[in-house]
């Protein structure tokens, strides 16, 4: 009985915070656009009883999903989002791994401070931090001022409103999500393994690639998913730092909802996005479970 209660808690949680909203969105995506409040039909009218339910379900259809396939904007946006997310995740890994490695090899008394520095940016609003990048990257921004001042360039670099700015923003924002899981695996690693590797004839470099890197695999996978999953649906960063040619599904979603007020199509976009994300989420869960089994 107690066990049942324990299992029930996460499931209720999932039901309330994920399944119910999802069903609502799914329902809207199957509805039709209407000039009313809310801006779609049909709505469920229980006062007419069985007849009402029947006509309600009869009015639902997949029209919006078919619509998504007719306009190539949508699949291009999905594809471009995935591409941006993949590239950004790899960049974050390239930046994050050395930082995590440095932290794990820092003297013991330094580690809490370093950890703190990684988490520190979370103390200010995400929006403000992304805004401040506009100030840094714009043509008259600090970065260009600095580079021109140092005489490295004569013309200001056009970074803001390009994909490069989006990558910088994503790497900056999600870096802690990459660092922390990698740091956790590196820090747990037994130092005598590296000694054993060296003892058996490895150079430091070989020991890293043959021992440290494979043993931090789980941290890398976890970090990559933690960056990749939210990045695909990212809206704020491309909206603020990206240009007109930055195509991301989060932005399309926003425009459908708030500019076109076409809730059904926006919902359909969201449902597809979710289906795309379910694949990496399941892979991520698998990885976590395998890791637990290996350790248990």
């Amino acid at each position, binding site marked *: 009985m107690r066990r049942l209660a324990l299992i029930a808690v996460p499931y209720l949680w999932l039901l309330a915070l994920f399944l119910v909203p999802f069903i609502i969105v799914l329902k809207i995506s199957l509805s039709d656009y209407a000039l009313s409040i809310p801006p779609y039909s049909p709505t469920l009218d229980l006062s007419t009883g069985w007849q009402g339910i029947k006509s309600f379900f009869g009015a639902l259809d997949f029209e919006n999903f078919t619509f998504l396939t007719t306009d190539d904007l949508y699949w291009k946006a999905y594809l471009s989002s995935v591409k941006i997310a993949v590239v950004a995740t790899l960049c974050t890994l390239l930046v994050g791994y050395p930082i995590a490695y440095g932290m794990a090899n820092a003297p013991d008394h330094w580690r809490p401070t370093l950890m703190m520095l990684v988490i520190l940016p979370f103390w200010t609003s995400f929006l403000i931090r992304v805004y401040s990048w506009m100030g840094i990257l714009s043509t008259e921004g600090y970065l260009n001022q600095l580079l021109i001042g140092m005489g490295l360039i004569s013309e200001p670099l056009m970074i803001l409103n390009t994909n490069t700015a989006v990558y910088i923003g994503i790497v900056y924002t999600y870096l802690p999500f990459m660092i922390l899981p990698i740091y956790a695996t590196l820090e747990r690693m*037994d130092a*005598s*393994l590296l*000694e054993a590797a*060296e*003892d*058996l*004839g490895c150079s430091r470099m070989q020991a890293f690639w043959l021992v440290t890197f494979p*043993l931090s695999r789980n941290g890398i996978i976890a970090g990559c998913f933690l960056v990749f999953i939210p990045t695909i649906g990212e809206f704020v960063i491309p909206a603020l730092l990206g240009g007109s040619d930055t195509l991301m599904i989060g932005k399309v979603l926003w425009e459908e909802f708030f500019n076109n007020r076409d809730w059904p199509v926006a919902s359909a976009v969201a449902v597809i996005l979710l289906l795309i994300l379910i694949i990496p989420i399941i892979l991520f869960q698998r990885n976590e479970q395998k890791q637990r089994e290996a350790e248990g």
Partner: protein
Amino acid sequence: MSQTVFEPWNDPDAKPLIQFKGVTKRFGDFTAIDDQTFDIYEREFFALLGPSGCGKTTMMRMLAGFEAPTEGTIWLDGQDIAPIPPNKRAVNMMFQSYALFPHLSVWDNIAFGLKRDGLPRDAIGDRVAEMLKLTRLEKFAKRKPHQISGGQRQRVALARSLAKAPKLLLLDEPLGALDAKLRQDTQFELMDIQETTGTTFVIVTHDQEEAMTVASRVAVMDDGRIMQADTPANIYEMPNSVYVADFIGDVTILEGTATRSGNGYDITFAEGQPSLHAESEIALTDGSRAALAIRPEKVSISAERPEDKRNALQGKILDIAYLGNLSTYHVELPSGQIVKAQAANTRRLSRRSFTWEDEVWISWTDTAAVLLEA
């Protein structure tokens, strides 16, 4: 025996493989190894024995290259090894914690060092197969370290360090987790390997019997110092200090004042007790403190005072430890000291000649006890 005795440490012309020259190792202000100078010769089986925390692992780690001496130098094969990194030393170490690679199978763990040497594929395969057979791990080759038992892990670690057939092999408690039978087999296996490959072994063990069985020399350590390094027989029969006598095997220590007499000394150890005589070559001034170390098996126990032995004391049996083939009697003297005497159990237990509270005589010969400076 027709074989010449293997005693390079007594041969002034022999060239040592390893030389510690005034080696001190400090961690902060804690001295783990205290100014040690000693040699280890090629083909030796050198056992380090000592209480936990006395510096055995530290000694090994300095040889393997993971710690640098704070002072002094270590020479391997006539070369100062300080500038040589661990991966360039012809030394392999079996770690006390095993340090198996958790992401690699047993097979890959053993092959790890061989692959680094760039050996051809089938040579690696053959060597790994040989090691698996030696350590009886054939069935587990494909398993990961977390899928095998503690003793099996220990054998993987042993196999991995043996695989490269290094010039010097450092084994930090290699057999601790094995059952008695397997441990004995592996001990003989190690001695075999040593004989066939000529590898020099330095082995840490907490098991005295093991050290006695396998070692050419045993070094008894205490607090960062080697107290005595000698053959197992000499360590046991001729300890150079009370510490060594007490650490190795079972012993009774009687402390008293020494007076020169004949070929040795008379020791007065308690009021109202006869003085004891021990032949000895050590030089003591009359009236100085000395300790007698007597092994229980050299003490006889009898109901009547034996006529032929000068050292005879009367006491009462306080305790009997039954060891199967032997029994150790703890005999309390009227002055309070307890002397241990061992006798073979030639009769059935129920027909044993002595029992608790019996008044008995214990005795030993003039050469049985070892006289040491207290």
